[in-house]
């Protein structure tokens, strides 16, 4: 299971839902090994599963070469509520969007979020091909395969075209990605690395053309985190030579890894699943948020067996404090990867569970 505080929040909400028995009767589709992923059909929504997300992250540079990070996520949650009665306001499927921008000139994140019931043109995620939307936010594959990513928040907006240069990378066992020691803790998970991004970025009303490199994660499941998990560290990197790396670990409360997983794509296009023992995260430097007091390991030494990388953030303050609204507090931002002191890759790093355990239900819709 990948990354994201919001994702954790949704998982906890789904867990609460199951505990409450509200969704007991709901027959969620299971995640089983051996199911082949078919494209473009599997790029679309899987409404029979409980939870699903499309996660776009990347680096953008304007004409002056200023680097910025961006992120756009769509979540889909099957609540199991009101499925027996159709209607425009049925809460059976909920859609949530989250967008963020890391701008070193500002020194902190700009971000925005939206949630709505899936309904017509207001919000939804289409099965069969990549298409998710909420209000005027949109993530959609076009006929030529390019993906449109569009979102706007307070003081920022982006409208990007993400052109794929390669086929999706299936994580885990051909897309069956385990998240814990027990096989039911698993998801279907693939990544599209090396997306060529181009388009417009608007900051405080000033529009600039930007280009860069992006990454799409798509994951769906009906299960939640294994017991004992308090958070995770995740990184996705696009190497300058065309290679790509996804590595993550799920932490227990003592800080040790409950589970580790990763996928390495070589510059030549061959991919292989990294064995858990090969992946090691070692914190090099911490940054304490002056706003929340949470201490985040923002710089890492990441060992993936064949080689080691040092991860350095685009800026230290990429904290997302959503405790007042969503209840989640986490760090999610653009990072550079250095090998032997030389920058070799750009990507995104996510650190969750450092701000204490999320309280059950807090900040979820309806509260």
């Amino acid at each position, binding site marked *: 299971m990948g990354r994201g505080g919001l994702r954790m929040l949704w998982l*906890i*909400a789904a867990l*609460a*839902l199951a*505990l*409450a*028995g*509200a969704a007991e009767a709901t027959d969620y589709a299971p995640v089983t090994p051996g199911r082949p992923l078919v494209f473009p059909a599997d790029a679309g929504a899987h409404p029979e599963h409980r939870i699903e997300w499309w996660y776009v992250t990347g680096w953008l540079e304007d004409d002056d070469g200023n680097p910025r990070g961006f992120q756009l996520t769509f979540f889909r949650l099957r*609540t199991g*509520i*009101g499925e027996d*009665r159709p*209607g*425009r*306001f*049925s*809460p059976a499927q*909920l859609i949530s969007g989250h967008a963020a921008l890391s701008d070193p000139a500002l020194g902190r994140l700009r971000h925005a979020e939206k*949630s*709505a*019931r899936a*309904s*017509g*043109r*207001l919000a939804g995620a289409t099965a069969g091909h990549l298409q998710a939307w909420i*209000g*005027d936010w949109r993530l959609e594959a076009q006929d030529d395969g390019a993906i449109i990513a569009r979102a706007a928040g307070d003081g920022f907006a982006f409208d990007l075209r993400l052109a794929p240069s390669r086929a999706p990378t299936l994580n885990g066992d051909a897309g069956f990605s385990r998240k814990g020691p027990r096989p039911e803790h698993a998801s279907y998970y693939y990544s599209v690395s090396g997306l060529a991004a181009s388009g417009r970025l608007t900051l405080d009303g000033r529009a600039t053309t930007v280009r860069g490199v992006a990454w799409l994660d798509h994951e769906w499941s009906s299960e939640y985190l294994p017991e004992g998990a308090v958070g995770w560290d995740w990184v996705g990197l696009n190497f300058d030579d065309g290679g790509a790396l996804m590595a993550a670990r799920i932490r227990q409360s003592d800080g040790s890894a409950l589970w580790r997983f990763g996928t390495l794509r070589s510059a030549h296009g061959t991919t292989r699943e990294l064995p858990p023992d090969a992946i090691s995260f070692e914190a090099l430097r911490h940054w304490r948020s002056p706003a929340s007091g949470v201490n985040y390991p923002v710089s890492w030494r990441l060992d993936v067996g064949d080689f080691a990388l040092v991860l350095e953030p685009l800026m230290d303050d990429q904290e997302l404090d959503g405790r007042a609204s969503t209840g989640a507090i986490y760090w999610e931002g653009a990072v550079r990867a250095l090998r032997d002191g030389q920058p070799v890759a750009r990507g995104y790093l996510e650190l969750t569970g450092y701000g204490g355990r999320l309280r*059950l*239900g807090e900040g*979820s*819709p*309806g*509260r």
Partner: protein
Amino acid sequence: MRRGLAAVFVGGLLRRRAASALSVLAIALGVALGLAVQLINDAALAEFGRGMRTLAGDADLRLAGPASGFDDALFEAVALHPLVADASPVVDIEARVVGGDTTLRVLGVDVLRLPAVQPGLVPRADDGTADAPFAGFSQHGIFLSPALAGRLARAAGEALVLQSSAGPLRLEVIGSVPGVAGQAVAVMDIHAVQHAFAMAGRLSRIDLRLIPGATPEAASRALAALLPAGVVAMTPQASLARDAGLSRAYRVNLTMLAVIALVCGGFLVFSTQALSVARRRAEFAFLRAIGLGRRRLAAWLLGEGAVLGLAGGLLGCALGTGFAALVLDGFGGDLGAGYFAGIAPALDASPAAMLAFVALGVLAGVAGAWLPARRAGAISPAAALKAAAGDPLAAAPGWRWPGPLCLVLATAACLMPPLAGIPVGGYLAVALLLAGGVLSLGRLARLVAASCPAVPLPLGLARARLQAAPGQAAVAAAGVLASSALAIAMAVMVASFRDSVDQWLGKVLPAEVYVRAARGSPALQLTPSVQQRLAALPGVARVDFRRHDQLNLDARIAPVSLLARPLSADGRELPLVGEHIVAADPVWISEALVDLLGLAPGDGLDVPLAGRAHRFTVAGVWRDYVRQGGALMVPLARYRELSGDQLANDAAIHLAPGHNAADLGAAIDEAFPAIDLEVVSPGEIRRRSLRLFDRSFAVTYLLEAAAVLIGLAGIAASFAAMAAARRREFGMLRHLGLGRRQIAAMIAAEGGLTAASGALGGALVGGAIALVLVEVVNRQSFHWSMDYRVPWLSLSLFVVALVALAALAAVLAGRLAMSGSAVRAVSEDW
């Protein structure tokens, strides 16, 4: 000297304890009533406004549809409109609690869209309930505002069973709506409400927040093309003003009642001050003789009035605040009239209002003391010390023409159109009639005296005195006239109203049995299958089904009721008033719509049905005492054809010969165990309606009684004053050989004659005021007409009793005069 004078004047008030107490009480009554009405209105309106603002939240614009809702497909188009930043859909229904008569307002909302538009409505789940995190989407959970939770006595975790369209719906109270304190509302998931309360695919309204820079006017214009007929765009402020306006006339009427009480209080101060001035003539003459100026004497007397007014004002403030608190607790903010149902206003005793009413009390006291003070100032010291001249009240005022002039002006005032829905001209006419009546009293007293036979002797003396000094009688009779005029006006108006309502009920309730679903709400309706089964029950000869809805005809006026029922082409089933025509596509409008929309028979009227406007022709006007905001009636078949809506809200059942209502009621209960239908007889509806009517007029009966008491107290005070001034005259009469009894009879006759002229004037003025109330005030305030009816018998009894009581009061007051010895009384005349 000042201290000494204070003892003479203000101290004098304490010596005349009974009279002062009466004056203080009368002013206190007026102030208390006025302040209570003001405080209750303020509290109700403040809570009403606060509630509306909470419910509307930060909305810049509201799209409101009929009570039956509009197609929820509109929401998507509106929410995605470029001028709209956020949109929040609401289904607003009234639901009935199973096994009780309680109804509650349930708002179906989308919790994800509330925070941006109506943050005050965001529900908070109770931590104890199981599905807290997704509680906002719960299909079986309900959130209660604190006020509603208190009223229903339900805590989180407890069950609440509501009558839904599919039978009893068992819900769990899963939390509260902390943002709405005084409003009794429940919040549920919009999807759940749509399905449970027959609103599937429908919305009641959409509240909008606009993008920065967009004005509500521009957005209204831009959205107009999207809106189906019957859905109007308005700002929450306009909506608030529109709804508050409905109760404005009612509130002003209550305030007018309080003003009348205050005027009566002023009259009493006048009477008692006149009395005390008469009694203290010698005292004043002495003070004048030792150098107290004319003006200063008058000022001290005015000061006495002010002290009485202040005491009354303060007492009235305390009473009024207590009364307001009691009423708010017991009846709610509209004294049970139904304008502010569902809110629990809290008393907010504003110092400004209190100060204003204390000032009004002082003003009443000073105004009452004005004339006696002027008269006292006019006393010539030498003459008064010698007591050669008559008493100060004896001089007949030179009022000749103002009386008739007032009556003419009153007629003109009646022709004034209402100002902002308030019948200002009507109130002015009432005041002018009263003034005209009082000013014409001297003439009337002379007339009454002249038409009275001169035997026996005491009556002859009384008659002669009244003819010789009508001004004096006029003063005494003024209180009687004012109070009896008000009492008679109220009595005639209420009788006319009650009689008309009674007749109207007979006309609108022709069937033997009425069956209805939940009160005034679209939440529970008679479906076609229920309708068929109802019609097929044994004993049913004919069923007329009726459908109700609330339509937005015009953004300027409050929603209008739509009623559809089987009707003949000429509308003969309706309580029609005025001319009516036979039209191809008829609609009959209530009198309110005649006033509000300026419509007349033959005019066209666009009625939005099922999102499309249809052109009807106004065929006639009917009288409606229920829906003050206006109602229109269309034939049921035509309504069903145009709207496609086959539901009904209630049924009027005509029984087959040989069947009775009780058996049918039992059969209905047996046939529909799940849907909790209410079966009532027209007699029961009539009883209930009239009970409600009587309750809402109870406060006027109270005022009538108070007015009459004040009038009688005025007679007693005036006669005590006259008796005090005429002690020498009585002594002389005793010397001339008249017995005590004969003098008592004379005073009684004077009192009776005075009261009779007052009562006669009161009857005439009261009858005229009643006419103004019926034809102008009610018509302009509430838009309903009624048939003028005079309850002759009870009014005659009232007048006779009043005259008898006045005679008694005069005798009692005169006893003081008769108590002294004849010798001493004469010897007072040095």
